[in-house]
């Protein structure tokens, strides 16, 4: 059984520890699980495990490329779950994928097998507040927290509702755009975080376009945690392997703990 996302994050946040959540596209590389272990070793508080989808509308080039590689490697949700189940990983695992992958398996089966693989959180970005209910109920019954997104465009009242519904943490979208490495942090970060701070919410983790230790540091001054996806995935695509991932995540850890 996995480690509860919400319990772990609540506890860490209470200790004023900043949360670090690296994202890895499952199956993009033969050694992806070693990389998952490496980033945990480097100080990840949770790992976001991406399941590839043919039509990832919230992802930019880097994660698209990783997803295509993964699909070409024959990755499926259940092959990922089976592989994860063989390792025992000491942080909460958050599955990230698009809703058709979940829906196609059926909520119950997907949640059951995910939970059995140690998954305790889910991010399904195309399940909006209005659509997420069914999945969230089933997920909860399997010990999976479903994380919702708040965007710079989300109005105040809606932010309140989303934060009330989001479990484990709330995913603060750092900018109006898709995943991808960015030279500079968006001006939107401040706005979206303070908008969430104004309402009751689980820990606030900022993702999408956070690419460097410097940026992670800046974000962590305002938010409770950072999610780093494309920048890490790019290194894996470039062949830096577990070692490179370890080094990068260590540098992120160091930055946010500064």
């Amino acid at each position, binding site marked *: 059984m996995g480690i509860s996302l919400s319990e772990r994050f609540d506890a860490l946040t209470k200790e004023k520890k900043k949360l670090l959540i690296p994202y890895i596209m499952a199956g993009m590389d033969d050694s992806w699980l070693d990389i998952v272990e490496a980033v945990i070793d480097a100080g990840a508080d949770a790992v976001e495990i991406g399941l590839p*989808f*043919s*039509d*990832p*509308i*919230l*992802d*930019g*080039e880097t994660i*698209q490329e990783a997803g*295509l590689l993964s*699909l070409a490697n024959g990755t*499926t*949700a259940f092959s990922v779950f089976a592989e994860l189940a063989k390792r025992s990983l000491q942080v909460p695992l958050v599955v990230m994928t*698009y*809703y*058709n*992958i979940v*829906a*196609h*398996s059926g909520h119950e089966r997907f949640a059951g097998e995910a939970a059995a693989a140690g998954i305790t959180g889910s991010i399904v*970005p*195309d*399940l*909006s*507040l*209005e*659509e997420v209910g069914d999945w969230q109920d089933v997920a909860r019954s399997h010990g999976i927290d479903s994380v*919702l*997104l*708040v*965007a*710079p*465009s*989300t*109005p105040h009242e*809606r932010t309140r509702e*989303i934060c009330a519904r989001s479990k484990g943490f709330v995913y603060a*979208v750092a900018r*109006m*755009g*898709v995943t991808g490495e960015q030279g500079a942090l968006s001006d939107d970060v401040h706005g979206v975080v303070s908008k969430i701070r104004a309402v009751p919410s689980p820990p606030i983790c900022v993702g999408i376009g956070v690419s460097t230790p410097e940026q992670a540091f800046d974000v962590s001054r305002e938010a409770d945690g950072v999610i780093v996806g494309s920048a890490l995935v790019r290194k894996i695509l470039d062949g830096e392997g577990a070692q490179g991932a370890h080094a990068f995540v260590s540098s992120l850890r160091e930055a946010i703990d500064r």
Partner: protein
Amino acid sequence: MWTMDPLIGVEVEMVDNAEMMMGTPDDDGRFGSFGGRFVPEPLIPACLELEAAFKDAWGDPVFVEEYESILHDFGGRPTPITFCRRLSEDLGISLYLKREDLAHTGSHKINNVIGQALLTRRMGKHKMIAETGAGQHGVASATAAALLGLECTVYMGELDTQRQELNVFRMELLGATVVPVTSGSKTLKDAVNEAMRTWVTQVDDTHYCLGSVMGPHPFPWMVREFQRVIGDEAALQSKELGIGTPDYVVACIGGGSNAAGMFAGFADSTAQLIGVEASGGAAITSGSPGVLHGMRSQLIQDDQGQISEAHSISAGLDYPGIGPEHAHLADIGRARYEQAGDDEVLEALQLLASREGIIPALEPAHGLAWILREAGRGIPKGSSVLLNMSGRGDKDVAQVLSILKGRP
């Protein structure tokens, strides 16, 4: 369907749920179990804004009048209904065509883009983005944008930009920027993905002008409303021409907008509604429920829920999904969905050209292929059949030439 009315004691035409057919979807944008708004949170406010703006505009006679007058003065509406005298004799049925091929830019797509371009302006936005497959919706969007002085960017799969160089240039002539999409399969569905990804970054000043009755709420509903002029006109014309209610109302299905617009005019009648998909992209008849591009609908997908590419002779039907309302109409049995294959479609195109002097686009040739196959079989002799001639074949002539004559 006739039944005895107990009150007035005479036989009356009975239509199930007459008031409900092709009405407004529910607040979550559902048509039965299909539809909805499955997009990432950053886009939700834009969808809500659009829904509000559309509701407001569609209830505003000033807006509706401007929309209608542009369709009339600029778009060439009303389009006529043409009786196919020679083919009707050949087939033993009465075959009528609703001539969307005569609308400006050569297909029904103009109806929708005029509506959305007006709405863009009304929302205070000055840019439109659009996706396109073969280029019809791209050309239409660029046209509407030029007319209203909006900036326009069209996303088109890189493979499609190569296959359709002339349509790319046509859009450029109309002042639009065409962006080749290199992600995924580099075709239509990826163009939609890319347009959505871009929309996220520009929602403030940009409207996403979707090309069919697909995508997140309110698009499937809004596009159908902007296309219902086809069916409303056709229903009126059928009366005026003495056809009455046609026995069959037939349309091809890509995303489903020409069919939805046509069906809307006949949903509450006794007409049998038939949507014809390309065999290689038959989301309803060969697909299964799923979620793509913001909607729950029927999709072509593999056993893992990965979306398949659609493949047919007709680029405009090569979409792996279908508008959610069609999935619903199929579910409740109000419309029937059939398939047509490439070979019979080519034959249908040639037959209509040589017998009636109309070269149809490959898309509506699917509808005709089904009619040709079923006339005298599934379609009883003597039936009246109204086909939505959704577009003209000029765009397809080079392709048909290379297929039929093996030229490059």
